[in-house]
């Protein structure tokens, strides 16, 4: 027994040691990661971010240098109060800021660099650079910021900002302080524009002194510069759209139907992209972000999801023809609405009768389209099946789903089908008369302006579309094939001509007669969308949204667009005028309908937008008074006045 005491103790200690080693090295040790090794300093070399050009080769976004003061809290040498005050003066911060920033940096990591004061001006940098050596633990890091060569297109171009911790956790490429595209093409083409940063691994000793490249630099990489991109935007058209949208809220999406390229993507209100560069970025961003009433960061062209109203009637005409339930020449007599027995399902306005398809479209007759719509649904023995067929056709125009394009935001919209109403009313407990609002785009159907623009492009093309996209060219690369492959609708080509003729007659003898542009054959359709908000939790109706879709010329169309103006009342009142102007601007380059232009520039909806928040009772639609302004802008927004390098 006595012989065994030491022997067993030795064996036991050996086992405990091996267990401890196993715990430390194998169990508790996620594989060795050089990036977490404090003995290896990582020095990053940021490449030039790619430039952004418009479709005509005009430079929109370039770069400018910026200087950040960084801190490694562990290495900050103690400073006396006077020294700190002097440092604060140089940095233009208060003593409280200094303490707060240092504390925040320490809580992030005492040994990793954190941004201390970002984006110094060139002048501050020049002064500070001389004195930096006095402040151990602080250093200046040069970075490249965006320099916008224009004041337009903030929603298109987007911005870059520091990657937040959630992003860093998901994408290990980024480190605290790295810049990342935040909205617009900066976000969707982040990896193209960004390039790849280079890295140098440097062996440090425990006093944090560099003692040479780690493993002679075999892991070091050179930066790969970002690629320049050309976007599909026509900056002149974009600028004109933004001018027209002044004093209004809404969105314009204009496409080239022959390619799906987005010519203009306007949202109002917007902001100057230069506001989100430099030291005031975070202040300005916060201001934009918290403006929950005007929502300048909300891209209405992509996100404003509403029932489309009358433009959707042409969809029902197309489906009716494809399903062979009507003939172009079939007529319907509208008695100021559609009657089911003695019950009036929907109203209509005064117009001549009888109504055939052409007349129905140009006069925007509700009764005619309810008639067509019911015929489509009731063609099938089961209303659910009828709805599914109807929905399949509508969805083939890119409605009711994301467009799967290269824009940073978007919404699905809604095209209801049989299941949708089975859920709403109960299985088979509904019929075509329940859902006639879909006939005139007022029911459960919802679309965004870009979806409407795309639908219009598909009509302009007589049955196919290219996914609307923003990228035109990537330096040394090609654009995704998905954007250059046509997508066909389920409507046969021959059915489009009569419908297009109807849209053409909207201008000739219909609801947009006053909006004709000499020399251009425009096809279009007006629309309105009812809308409601909650004021003190009471559902309140506001003035209708003004909606318009159009394309031109009728043959070989060059532009298709959808315009949406919040609370603009009827379609031709705001949106229609703007559509004519945008089309004329794009096709002719000059404006002959200066009367329309004057009207749009002198009429503001800002009073209209204030009404719900005034606390006073207000009238809508017919009862609302139009606001005329005199100090309006007539100049195009500056397309070249941004920060110069």
């Amino acid at each position: 027994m006595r012989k065994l005491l030491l022997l067993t103790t030795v064996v036991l200690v050996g086992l405990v040691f091996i267990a401890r080693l196993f715990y430390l090295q194998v169990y508790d040790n996620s594989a060795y990661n050089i990036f977490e090794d404090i003995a290896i300093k990582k020095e990053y070399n940021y490449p030039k971010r790619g430039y952004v050009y418009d479709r005509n080769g005009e430079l929109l976004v370039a770069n400018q240098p910026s200087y950040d003061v960084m801190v490694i809290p562990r290495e900050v040498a103690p400073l006396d109060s006077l020294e700190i005050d002097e440092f604060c003066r140089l940095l233009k911060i208060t003593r409280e800021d200094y303490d707060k920033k240092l504390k925040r940096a320490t809580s992030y990591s005492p040994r990793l660099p954190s941004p201390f004061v970002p984006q110094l001006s060139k002048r501050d940098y020049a002064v500070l650079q001389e004195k930096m050596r006095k402040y151990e633990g602080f250093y200046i890091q040069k970075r490249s910021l965006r320099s916008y060569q224009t004041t337009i297109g903030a929603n298109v171009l987007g911005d870059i900002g520091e990657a937040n911790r959630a992003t860093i956790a998901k994408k290990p490429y980024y480190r605290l302080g790295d810049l990342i595209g935040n909205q617009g093409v900066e976000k969707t083409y982040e990896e193209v524009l960004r390039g790849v940063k280079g890295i140098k691994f440097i062996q440090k000793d425990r006093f944090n002194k560099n003692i040479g490249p780690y493993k002679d630099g075999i892991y070091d990489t050179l930066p790969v510069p970002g690629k320049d991109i050309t976007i599909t935007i026509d900056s002149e058209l974009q600028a004109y759209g933004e001018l027209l949208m002044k004093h209004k809220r809404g969105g314009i999406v204009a496409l080239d139907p022959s390619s799906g390229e987005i010519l203009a993507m306007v949202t109002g209100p917007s902001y100057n992209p230069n506001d989100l560069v430099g030291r005031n970025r975070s202040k300005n961003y916060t201001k934009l972000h918290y403006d929950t009433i005007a929502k300048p960061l909300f891209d209405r062209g992509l996100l404003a999801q509403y029932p489309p109203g009358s433009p959707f009637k042409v969809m029902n005409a197309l489906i009716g023809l494809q399903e062979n339930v009507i003939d172009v020449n079939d007529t319907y007599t509208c008695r100021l609405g559609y009657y089911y027995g003695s019950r009036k399902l929907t109203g209509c306005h005064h117009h001549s009768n009888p109504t055939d398809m052409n007349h129905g479209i140009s006069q925007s007759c509700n009764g005619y389209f309810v008639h067509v719509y019911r015929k489509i649904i009731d063609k099938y023995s089961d209303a659910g099946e009828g709805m599914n067929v109807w929905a399949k056709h509508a969805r083939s125009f890119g409605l009711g789903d994301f467009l799967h394009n290269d824009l940073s935001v978007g919404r699905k919209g809604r095209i209801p089908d049989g299941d949708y109403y089975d859920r709403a009313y109960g299985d088979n407990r509904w019929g075509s008369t329940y859902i006639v609002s879909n006939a005139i785009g007022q029911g459960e159907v919802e679309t965004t302006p870009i979806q409407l623009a795309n639908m219009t492009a598909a009509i302009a093309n007589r049955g196919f579309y290219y996914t609307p996209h923003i990228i035109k060219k990537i330096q040394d690369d090609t654009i995704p094939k998905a954007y250059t492959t046509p997508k066909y609708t389920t409507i046969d080509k021959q059915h489009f001509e009569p419908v297009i003729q109807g849209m053409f007659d909207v201008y000739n003898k219909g609801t947009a007669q006053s909006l004709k542009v000499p020399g251009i054959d425009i096809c279009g359709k007006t629309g309105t969308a009812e809308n409601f908000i909650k004021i003190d939790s009471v559902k309140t109706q506001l003035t209708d949204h003004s909606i318009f879709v159009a394309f031109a010329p009728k043959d070989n169309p060059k532009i298709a667009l959808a315009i949406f103006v919040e609370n603009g009342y009827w379609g031709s009142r705001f949106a229609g005028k703007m559509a004519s102007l945008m089309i004329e601007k794009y096709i002719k380059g000059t404006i002959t309908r200066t009367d329309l232009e004057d009207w749009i520039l002198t009429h503001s909806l800002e009073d209209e937008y204030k009404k719900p928040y005034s606390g006073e009772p207000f009238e809508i639609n017919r009862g609302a008074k139009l606001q005329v302004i005199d100090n309006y802008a007539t100049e195009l927004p500056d397309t070249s006045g941004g920060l110069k390098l």
Partner: protein
Amino acid sequence: MLRENQRHFKFDWITIILFLLLVGFGYLNILSASHIGEITSYFDTSQLYGKHMMFIGLTLILIILILSLEAKFYEKFASIIYLVAMLALVGLFIFGKEVNGARSWYGIGSMTIQPSEFAKFATALAVARFMSDLQTNMQTLKDQIRVAAIIFIPALLILLQNDAGSTIVYLAFFFVFYREGLQQIYLAIALSLIALAVIGLKFGVLITAAIAAIIIFSVYFLRRKKRGSILQYITVLALCVSFSYGVRLFYNHVLKPHQQNRISLWLRLENDPVKLQRMKKEEAYNLIQSEHAISSGGLSGKGFLQGTRTTGKFVPEQHTDYIFSTVGEEWGFLGSSGVVLLFVLLIIRILYLAESQKSQFSRVYGYSVASILFIHFTINIGMVMGLIPTVGIPLPFFSYGGSGLWGFTILLFIFVKLDSNKINEW
């Protein structure tokens, strides 16, 4: 005559190979932990690894010398060797040189020599000599006190020179005494004292007293027949409580702040996060760096000379007391558990050989060698991995330093010589 010669060279090659493996592998790690910049020559004596190479060279000469002396020499001269070693320790008070607060070095020119490293084998010889004396009876208190004095003298001298780590090594002899017949009660007492000290520090005297009372009175009530007087039990309890209280007093008033901190960190006594943070900063820097270096090694390590923390000299004293963290970083779990295995095998081999000795002198000496190596191994590696409080003692054969390497080599090879001679004992 031939046969005689064969016997003469019948050294235990297993021990020798284990020794060579440890020294060789130790050298590689010292090289890694101490090189600065390019390695131009392995014999560059301006570098620590070059010096260590020289120490290893001298060690080989030393081994030949030890093995060529008559085995009887060590037994005969044990007392004199012990006496010389003790004088060397005493001499430190007059001629000693202070390094890192410990006055445990002689400076000879540019060389320094640490006599405490040599006092270990000297004490082991003296203990073996005394215990193998036919007159000695370990069962008697008188001889127990005498043998205790043999180890107490060097331990005290070293403690007075402020080298607490090396003092603890002398606890190794407990294993020797126990093997040679020290009563069971001593083992029980030793274990009880350790328990009392730890529980007393961690949970306070009251809880310790309560636990001790429960155990002692349970024994009293269970031993119905031979239970004896209850007064005896109360006395034992009182002793327990006073010991536990004494440990606290010792901890609070005798230990230096850095020693307190080490124990506090180990037993997790500090609850105030601010103080804890400060304590860690002051006291645990080495330990944290060493643990990080070890765990960053992973399963198979970063490779020889590739340890980033080793290259960056993140672990202070890495080539001496913290050499095992280099093994951990560069050779990973496989390499470091290999080293643990080598030590365990070496100690078991020595134990096995010790048990097979015919003379009591050889057996006791062998047992002492195993115990001393074991204590060093346990304390050093346990400390480097954060299992026990920081105590500065080297890892035998591995750590940088001439005195240490020579001290352990002499310790081991005297036993190799004694073992080779066991047949001649008849």
